[in-house]
């Protein structure tokens, strides 16, 4: 169990796929419930994983390492640290919610739909588990196929364009990444005499800095497209707007994290010098993404594309945090990955819910919903607040840590980026006001029903997570910390730049000082 649990979690949905293949495609309820149960068990397994995980312990856990394709030194090598752990849990939870959310909205091709959902899960969890670059790439690409179908088959009006755009964008990046992976393979072979795709081994290999530049570039392009970083973001709004609710949830909740995950798992530790060299460019791009995404989001007419652009902005924050290259920045970024998954996922779910009722997503078609669906409005408000990072919601902790770290690394970046906090309040609240507040103008809105039980069940866990992470993030941070530490070690050791965190002008032992003698010495 100890060693097999990762394999189990990764491939359990595959079992579901096989089951579904034998269900006749007319029996929708069976299909739905089977896939739901499978996803649910996967979620429970991930919780089990979470409970078994050793916080504050260094290095990978639950490692499995079995030779797979020996002539290339490709191993079936899985293992997780805190970062992957959290993302895996996020993935499984969101999958369950996504499946629930598409319970009624998906009516055609049900079988294929749920098969793709499960396949998607396999891919996503696989990416987070794999410590072998080859496996990583395989899972990375496998994810594309079901997503392509989900967008293209069950999407909106321009779904085909969106689907192809999505696949082509991602392929473009990942193919260059493939070249880089091959190159790494032979670099390592030159260095150690044996083939290996093992990330952990590759990290130990010293790479000439100019080579690092190229490799980092190749990897970074793939990841930046996935994130998406500023100039490469245009696939995102299309994909989000066209995709069905569940698709958007998974896309925003997990797929975007692949990019940032790739950065922190591969780019930063493997190419430290290149990281330092590229740092300014990527930081600037992320800042542009923050401001740009926020501004463009402000003028969107479609709620979904507004949320899409808002995730461009948020992902910009995460990238900026990663490239602060210090504890607070990276840790905040990792936590923010989780937060963004939760809150943006919730936002998409909510948008999907009103879409199911009204079959429109245009902001001007709504207004005054607070009167007819108060509960909905409340949840919407909570999620909105978490996405604009109000204290005691998850968003705040992440954004604060990120900005704190960035401020340390580069004050100007932090100051510019912090304006994003203001802007996010602008567009989110404006949207909320136009959708929820005011008088009911359209009479279709007067008869809207409030949240159904299913929807309550969908939203409840997310709301809980929002407050949990916001109020007591310690368990998460504790699990992230060692992983982040190792990354920082990697960078710190490999580069001349030192990233130690305790360099204050003032160093004090505040514990034994009391308020009063403080004043006494003041007198």
């Amino acid at each position, binding site marked *: 169990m100890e060693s097999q649990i990762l394999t189990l979690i990764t491939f359990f949905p595959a079992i579901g796929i096989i089951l579904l293949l034998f269900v006749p495609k007319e029996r929708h309820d069976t299909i739905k419930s089977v896939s739901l149960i499978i996803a649910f068990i996967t979620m429970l397994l991930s919780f089990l994983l979470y409970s078994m995980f050793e916080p504050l312990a260094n290095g990978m856990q639950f490692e499995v390492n079995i030779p797979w394709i020996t002539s290339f030194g490709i191993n079936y090598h899985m293992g997780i640290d805190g970062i992957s752990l959290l993302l895996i849990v996020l993935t499984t939870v969101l999958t369950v919610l996504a499946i629930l959310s598409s319970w009624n909205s998906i009516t055609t091709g049900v079988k294929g739909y749920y098969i793709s959902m499960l396949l998607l899960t396999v891919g996503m969890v696989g990416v987070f588990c794999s410590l072998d670059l080859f496996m990583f790439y395989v899972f990375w690409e496998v994810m594309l196929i079901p997503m392509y179908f989900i967008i293209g088959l069950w999407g909106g009006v321009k779904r085909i364009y969106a689907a192809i755009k999505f696949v082509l964008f991602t392929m473009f990046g990942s193919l260059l990444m493939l070249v880089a992976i091959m190159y790494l393979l032979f670099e390592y072979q030159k260095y150690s005499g044996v083939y290996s795709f093992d990330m952990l081994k590759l990290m130990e290999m010293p790479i000439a800095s100019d080579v690092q530049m190229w490799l980092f570039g190749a990897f970074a392009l793939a990841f930046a497209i996935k994130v998406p970083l500023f100039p490469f973001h*245009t696939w995102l709004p299309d994909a989000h707007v066209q995709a069905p609710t569940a698709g958007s949830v998974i896309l925003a909740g997990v797929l975007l994290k692949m990019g940032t995950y790739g950065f922190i798992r591969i780019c930063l530790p493997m190419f430290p010098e290149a990281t330092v060299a590229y740092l300014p460019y990527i930081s600037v791009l992320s800042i542009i993404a923050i401001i740009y995404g926020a501004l463009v989001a402000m003028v969107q007419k479609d709620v979904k594309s507004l949320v899409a652009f808002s995730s461009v902005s948020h992902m910009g924050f995460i990238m900026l945090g990663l490239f602060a290259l210090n504890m607070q920045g990276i840790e905040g970024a990792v936590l923010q990955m989780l937060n963004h998954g939760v809150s943006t996922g919730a936002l998409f779910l909510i948008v999907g819910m009103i879409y199911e009722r009204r079959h429109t997503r245009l902001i001007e078609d709504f207004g005054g919903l607070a009167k007819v669906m108060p509960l909905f409005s409340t949840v919407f408000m909570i999620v909105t607040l978490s996405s604009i990072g109000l204290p005691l919601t998850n968003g705040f902790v992440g954004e604060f840590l990120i900005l704190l770290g960035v401020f340390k690394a580069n004050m100007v970046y932090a100051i510019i980026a912090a304006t994003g906090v203001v802007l996010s309040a602008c567009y989110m*609240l404006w949207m909320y006001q136009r959708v929820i507040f005011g008088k009911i103008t359209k009479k279709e809105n007067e008869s809207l029903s409030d949240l159904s039980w299913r929807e309550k069940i969908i939203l409840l866990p997310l709301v809980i997570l929002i407050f949990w992470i916001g109020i007591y993030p310690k368990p998460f941070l504790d699990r992230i910390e060692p992983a982040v530490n190792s990354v920082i070690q990697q960078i710190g050791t490999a580069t001349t730049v030192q990233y130690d965190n305790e360099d204050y002008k003032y160093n004090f032992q505040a514990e034994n*000082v009391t308020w009063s003698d403080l004043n006494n010495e003041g007198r």
Partner: protein
Amino acid sequence: MSEYIYLIPLLPFIGFLINGLFIGKISRTLSGIIASGMVGLSFIVSLMLFFDLKALPADSRVMEQVLFTWINSGSFHVNFGLLLDPLSAVMILVVSGVGFLIHVYSIGYISHDKCYGRFFTYMNLFTFSMLTLVLADNFLLMFVGWEGVGLCSYLLIGFWFEKKSASDAGKKAFIVNRIGDFGFLLGMFLIFWNIGSLNFHDVIQAAPTAFIAGGGLITAICILLFVGATGKSAQIPLFVWLPDAMEGPTPVSALIHAATMVTAGVYMIARTNILYIMSPDALMVVAIIGAATAFFAATIGMAQNDIKRVLAYSTVSQLGYMFLACGVASFSAGIFHLMTHAFFKALLFLGAGSVIHAMSDEQDMRKMGGLKKYIPVTYWTFFIATIAISGIPGLSGFFSKDEILWKSFSSQYGHPIFWVIGFVTAGMTAFYMFRLVYMTFHGKERMDKETKSHIHESPKTMTIPLMVLAVLSVVGGWVGLPHIFGVTNHFEHWLEPIMATNNHTAVQHALLSSGANASAEWGLMGASVALVLIAIFLARLFYNKKPELATNFQQKLKGIHKLLLNKYYVDEIYGAVIIRPLVYFSLFLWKFIDVVIIDGFLNGMATLYNDISETLRQGQSGKLRSYATIFAGGVILILFYFLME
């Protein structure tokens, strides 16, 4: 006893939970009772704690309670910790006390609205956040309360969300506050990265060694924190949201936009006074902004006709006073005024609410008048508050305001100009307050029959809090009698432990000892009183005895009057300079950069490839002879290459 501090914020939170979860399921009165009961309980707890604190020796008057570790990342470590010291003790008393009264008042006020559940939920949430703000033992937790109260004000201003103006005002309040918070955040970052902690202890302890007094760094920190304060406490340039905030229910205006939340900025500065003391430039900025705000707001207030707006601008101007006090480094005076202001301004708002209630939601003073005989209780309480705020000797307002005026003159950071501004402002305050009183309660009745028939005194739940507050606004000032009365200023003395102790207090004592200054203080005091009386007389003349004077006076100064009526067009200017350009810029980004440039490029590539494909296809003509030609051509090339070798 210190382990019960957490009860103070917790009780309102419980009330919030109950009201929130059972919203619509529990009866109007019950939810009201729960809400105000919880706040009342926390007030009692506060009192007990206050006395415990008082029992302690003056040097060690501090109680702490760390609930749990909140955020811990590398060297960054923040606890969810509460801190009770003289300053926060004052604050919790004000917040929970005034809050309690306002809650009680609300029971009656909200009795016609069916959304009472939501109302009390928000109110309790607000009380919780406010108490968290004042009890926090570190900047970050303070920021939590800071944003929390911002949220609640957003929710409560937009309470009647069907009114577009209301939701707009709420949004405006939140966003403007956010702009302030932006500064606050950066200030926190600077503090953390230079000191390594956000805990008040550590900061206070480390500051003297970590920063060079008067250096750029400390000044930057103070200015940034002050930006946050301007946002929260509606100072220039971020005061625009407060008048609009009057869209909310009147108790809300009383609680949030008069008594408590808006004073958070003052509290914060007082809390970090050590830092401010280290940076005279920052103090200067604070003082200037405060004085300017006080003056401008007062001028605007003189021209408004909406009863609540007048009060709103007066609030802004009073806050200006408080900042002026802080700016001249007499923080205790600021806090003192904060407290007294909480009393009488809350009273004023509640009274206004009662008036509006009586007038069946009419807010325009030009449609009022002569209400005195219909609603006596309201009138008298309101009148007391009015004379309190205008600084008639003996009432709370007089002492606090006068101390500020004196400090702005005498303190080493002070300057006669500050005194002049404060002095003039005091006069204007008296003027517009009495203008308000006369237009509302005296003179001939300008309301139509229909409303007139409905005029009635408010229920007990509303009047009792008024009376209590009236009493407070009379006696509230007596805790801080100035030295020259020959008594020790209890209030200043109480706050002394947390106040920065540096040479300036010494200087002050020196000043006080000399009789010359005592006489100077007497003189100034007398001058201000005189001015106030003149102002009252003018108000009476214009708005009671000879209204026509006022009108043709307005005719004469049409331009100025128009300017004041429209609040110096600040909103319009902001709209034109900031908001609209931003929106257009965003549209440009979206429609041009995104759609045209980036996507255009990509689609261009696609079409390019298609065209290449098309052209190449022409080569595949289907004619075998051309195939043979291509073939032979290829052969030639390859052979040629090999011949070149």
